[in-house]
């Protein structure tokens, strides 16, 4: 048993007052959860303390909250670990390195209903419905069940693990800046159907999510959702898969998402290191076509970047030809080696390692034992076997 002080951000709408902090002293084993601590405070000190919970085993997804600023599940965070983090954060800020309060807040990016209870409907569920979260097969349904190869489902198992707790939404830094961003939970759900071999509207789904200015290209790649997710869904990785698939489908989006990706990839193939001004130009006005007939957005963006460029020239950070004129950037001395790498990767492109995590052997050998092919694509799987 150990004593902890939990500092809870409270809000009681019926009081007419704004939110406030309240501390509770709780007494429990360090291996018990932050949720256990909250329930003890509710039981002993204040029955009005509102927290949503049910299974207490990281299955139901009810107790999403922020603990020391980190989004996660109250039931999956040990109170002893939460104490260590609170002390580490205080110590880094120059305060005492022991006995600090564990700070508990409702989830972010959502309206608060009462204390730790947030309104999941107005943000989370609305966004989930935005991505049409059900299968859209074409043609008459089969007489019995749909038959799919087990291997073809591996790619989406990660996104299927979602328990809809909202921790990723709470942590999302793009949504903090743009509340209209579709967000990590809904986009991970979108990939669950984009990657499903039974779904027949893959192209339409991708097109929709690429076109939307608050869609897949609004994700700022900050990894917050990956660390917040209690089930290893890695929503950001699913968003990157959506981008890759959109590229493979040849979808041109008005947000320059695809053009930026292609421009980046081509520049490194040509030069080896990044030609920043060429990247900017090619992202907005790609190729001859883009320059002959630039889009309104391209003109606006290019004009918009002029003041920044002028400031850079004035201070000297951009005062050289190869930084100012797109394409003058020198290539590496052995750029042919880089080109050979491109040729090799394009020829053999193996997507067999998407789920590799941790050290050698842990996962790879397990899969070999289970007889799971590492590829989701039967053709390349064959190639791996033969190769």
């Amino acid at each position, binding site marked *: 048993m150990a004593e902890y002080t939990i500092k809870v951000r409270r809000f009681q709408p019926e009081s007419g007052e704004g939110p406030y902090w309240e501390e509770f002293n709780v007494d429990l084993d360090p291996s018990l959860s932050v949720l256990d601590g909250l329930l003890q405070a509710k039981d002993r000190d204040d029955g009005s303390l509102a927290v949503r919970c049910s299974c207490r085993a990281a299955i139901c997804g009810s107790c999403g909250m922020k603990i020391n600023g980190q989004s996660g599940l109250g039931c999956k965070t040990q109170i002893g670990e939460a104490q260590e983090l609170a002390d*580490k954060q205080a110590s*880094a*800020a*120059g305060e005492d390195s022991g006995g600090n309060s564990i700070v508990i807040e409702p989830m972010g990016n959502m309206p608060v209903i009462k204390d730790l209870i947030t309104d999941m409907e107005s943000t989370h569920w609305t966004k989930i419905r935005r991505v049409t979260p059900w299968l859209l097969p074409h043609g008459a349904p089969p007489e019995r069940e749909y038959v799919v190869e087990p291997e073809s489902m591996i790619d989406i198992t990660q996104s299927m693990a979602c328990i809809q707790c909202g921790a990723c939404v709470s942590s999302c*830094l*793009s949504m*903090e*800046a*743009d509340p209209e*961003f579709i967000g990590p939970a809904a986009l991970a759900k979108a990939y669950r159907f984009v990657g499903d071999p039974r779904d027949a509207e893959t192209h339409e789904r991708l097109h929709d999510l690429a076109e939307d200015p608050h869609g897949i*290209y*609004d994700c*700022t*790649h*900050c*990894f*917050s959702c*990956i*660390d917040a997710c209690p089930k290893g869904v*890695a929503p950001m990785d699913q968003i*990157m898969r959506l*981008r*890759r698939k959109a590229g493979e489908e040849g979808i041109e989006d008005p*947000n*320059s998402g695809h053009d930026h990706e292609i421009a*980046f*990839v081509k520049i490194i193939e040509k030069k*080896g*290191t*990044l030609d*920043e001004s060429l990247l900017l130009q090619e992202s*907005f006005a790609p190729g001859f076509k883009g320059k002959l007939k630039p889009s309104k957005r391209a003109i606006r963006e290019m004009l*918009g970047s002029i*003041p920044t460029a002028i*400031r*850079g020239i004035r201070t*000297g*950070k951009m005062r050289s030809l190869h*930084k100012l004129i797109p394409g003058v950037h020198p290539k590496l*001395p*052995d750029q042919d*080696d*880089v080109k*050979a*790498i491109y040729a*090799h*990767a394009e020829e*053999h*492109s*193996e*997507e*067999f*390692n998407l789920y*590799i*995590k*941790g*050290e*050698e052997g*842990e996962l*790879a050998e397990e899969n070999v034992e289970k007889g799971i092919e590492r590829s989701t694509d039967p053709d390349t799987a064959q190639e791996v076997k033969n190769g």
Partner: protein
Amino acid sequence: MAENIKVAYWPGCVSRGFTPELHGSMAIVAEKLGMELVELDRANCCGAGVIAEHNQELADTLNARTFALAQQTGLAMMNICSTCQGAQSECQQRLDADSAYRAHINEVLSGQGLSYEKDKQGFTNKNFLWLLVEDYGLDRLREQVVRPLSGLRVGPFYGCYIVRPKERLGYGEFPDRDVYLEKVIEALGGEVVEYDGARKCCGFPVITMARETSLRQAGTHVGDALDAGADCLVTPCPLCHLNLDMQQPEAAKVVNRDLGLAVLHLPQLVGLALGAEPKELGMGKHIASTRWVEERLTTGAPA
């Protein structure tokens, strides 16, 4: 570790592009710290996550080439960019996890006289921030300080790629990597400013795709640091620097407030404390004026 540090040094693209002051200040600081940098001038771009988004194997192979070039020197590798750190760590994780995959990648590298080998201790690639704390050591750094940053209020700004995902970035072994900037600021005699944005995203990855989302992030963090009383920010990531410094006037328009906060590269902050002059550290190249920082150091602070 008392002996001199010698590393295979990957400066990245941006430090030689739009933030040339970073590359220059790293060279000055290395000399002052007695570090020897063997520059990997044949190495290629890390892909910054964008190439991985396009073709994972391509990104893995490109970075395996860089690792192999570093391994040829027989030295551990050092980078000066959070984004390089994150993108390279991701590729290294995949390469280290599967010998068959490594062999496949090495097929193309062998034609170039290169090979990436996972040795027993593991291939080491550290950002200058990690190296400074873990290998050089804060006590030793403290001894080198000739101009303590007394009274200078510094807000740390890490860059996402160096703090998340924890599972990939060695936080198991080094759990304090997300508070190293605070430790370095203190070791240099400065004062740490706590504000909301230290471990948030600068917005740079979407500057071409969602300009407003991007600049709102940068502007918010700079504003929060100003409100918390910061004299400057410090970052180990040149891409963050682009959004926080180079785009600062544009970010100010989006968040609709005056900004004007100096953003220093990590080697610049270290260099100031080690006695280097602001001019040689390239601070004049910044967009947001660093004059306030310079004045604080020359007038305000008792040594």
